[in-house]
């Protein structure tokens, strides 16, 4: 679980950009992108983000790995919607007695959310691959995000590493005594073993929480966290990067909203 707290490996130059600016820009980009109606504009946005990501030094392999996380949901949606939407069939699949038909309306309904998903995915990939979680929580703090949530995220991330280590050691110890998970939920021994392992992990975590609290008390903790992080000044480079991203995003959005009315103006 060490990946969580590590500095991202990608994004050599982009890592220097202030995390606040990056976050705001990417959030606006994603919100705008997920409301686009025009497929060409969506694709344009996607390629734009892909371009920035690649320029930032994010490896394509990394992107594909990340994509694997959201594919199940997206995949199911794309493979279901075209078949179940009523409309004019464009392609049929004969499975014995069953006949499945992809409808034009269904295809239309599926392709748009999927393009949006992909675009937003690229936006988030760009952000999370070039910014560590710590930089993000730090930025959120300066953006006046509720402090307690930031503290909780920081705390959780710190102890995910510790608790996952405990879990891994417990699983290794089980294996060392010849444990092999059974085939299914009806295997009582397997269910009992998994249940007891998690129960023990819970008790250990619960007690650790108490010890952590005592250790905090002993260093003068009074239930309030006082800010000690220093706030970096936002530099011109940061601002121009943010402004550029946001402008492009809104430009695409405006073209999408009023594309038809714009075209005569351009003539």
């Amino acid at each position: 679980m060490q990946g969580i707290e590590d500095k991202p490996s990608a994004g050599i130059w982009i890592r220097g950009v202030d995390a606040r600016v990056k976050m705001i820009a990417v959030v606006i980009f994603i919100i705008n992108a997920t409301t686009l109606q025009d497929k060409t504009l969506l694709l344009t946005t996607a390629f734009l983000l892909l371009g920035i990501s690649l320029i930032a030094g994010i490896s394509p392999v990394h992107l594909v790995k990340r994509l694997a996380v959201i594919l199940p949901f997206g995949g199911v949606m794309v493979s279901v919607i075209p078949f179940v939407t009523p409309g004019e069939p464009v392609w049929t699949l004969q499975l014995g007695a069953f006949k499945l038909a992809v409808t034009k309306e269904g295809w239309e309904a599926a392709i748009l959310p999927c393009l949006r998903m992909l675009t937003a995915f690229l936006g988030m990939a760009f952000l999370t691959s070039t910014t560590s979680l710590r930089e993000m929580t730090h930025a959120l703090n300066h953006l006046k995000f509720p402090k307690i949530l930031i503290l909780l995220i920081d705390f959780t991330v710190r102890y995910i590493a510790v608790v996952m280590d405990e879990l891994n050691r417990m699983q290794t110890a089980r294996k060392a005594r010849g444990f092999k998970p059974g085939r299914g939920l009806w295997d009582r021994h397997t269910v009992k073993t998994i249940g007891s392992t998690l129960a023990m992990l819970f008790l250990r975590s619960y007690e650790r929480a108490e010890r952590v609290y005592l250790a905090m008390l002993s260093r003068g903790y009074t239930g309030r966290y006082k800010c000690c992080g220093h706030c970096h000044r936002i530099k011109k480079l940061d601002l121009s990067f943010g402004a550029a991203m946001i402008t492009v995003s809104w430009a695409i959005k405006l073209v999408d909203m009023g594309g038809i009315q714009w075209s005569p103006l351009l003539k």
Partner: protein
Amino acid sequence: MEPAIEVTKLSFSYKDGTRALDRCSVTVERGTKVAILGPNGSGKSTLLLHFNGIHLVQQGTVRVLGKTVNQHNEQWLRSKVGLVFQDPDDQIFSGTVWEDVAFGPVNQGLRGEELEAKVRQALRFVNMEQYGHKVPYHLSYGQKKRVAIAGVLAMDPDIIVLDEPVAFLDPAGKRALFELLNRLNRQGKTIVTATHDVDLAARWADKVIILCRGRVLTQGEPALLTDKTIVQEAELELPTVTEIFAPFPDLCQPKTPVTVEEARSIIKQLL
């Protein structure tokens, strides 16, 4: 001058009724190195948690630097007595080493330059200066231990209390830790450690306090550890050096050896 810590007839029971301390009276003089010995469950940790005001006094009194500990001087107490917990993962909870060391001073109200200076100084003292930006997860056990100590040092306490500090350290880590504790002691800090390592106590401490089932069995010179009756009652063992000389009572006059140096000087006389 008042002693650093003075505990009088302290009793303590946990909520579930377990009596952890039973009329304990101990004294820790200023500027000394004290080892609290006793088997697991003898009440060592419970006693330590009183020094820092984490456990509130139920019966008896605890005086620290001349002041009687009560609810109103909690914050003062925590800045005077630094507690280093056994498992550094319990103590280092922040995302980076720097932030963790800063936690105590920030609670004391330090900010800006002054804070920076304190944290830097504490990290330098434990030789972890270049690790400030590191994530605790990537540190070795010994490094974590030193960061935990830095977190306490940054609050500039007069008394540093460590619970079982060497349990999982390898020899190099132990050496580094004791070198550190001795340096602190030379600067005038009082150091209290709870341990069940008799060799360590014999070699390092100015005074030993032996606990057994919540009671103070005895306290005084490390030479107490050569007393077989005491050691047996407290379920401890003789220091290795003492064990070697046990069959030779004549050599143990006027004083049974406990440290390597004492052993050597006896052998030198024999040659």
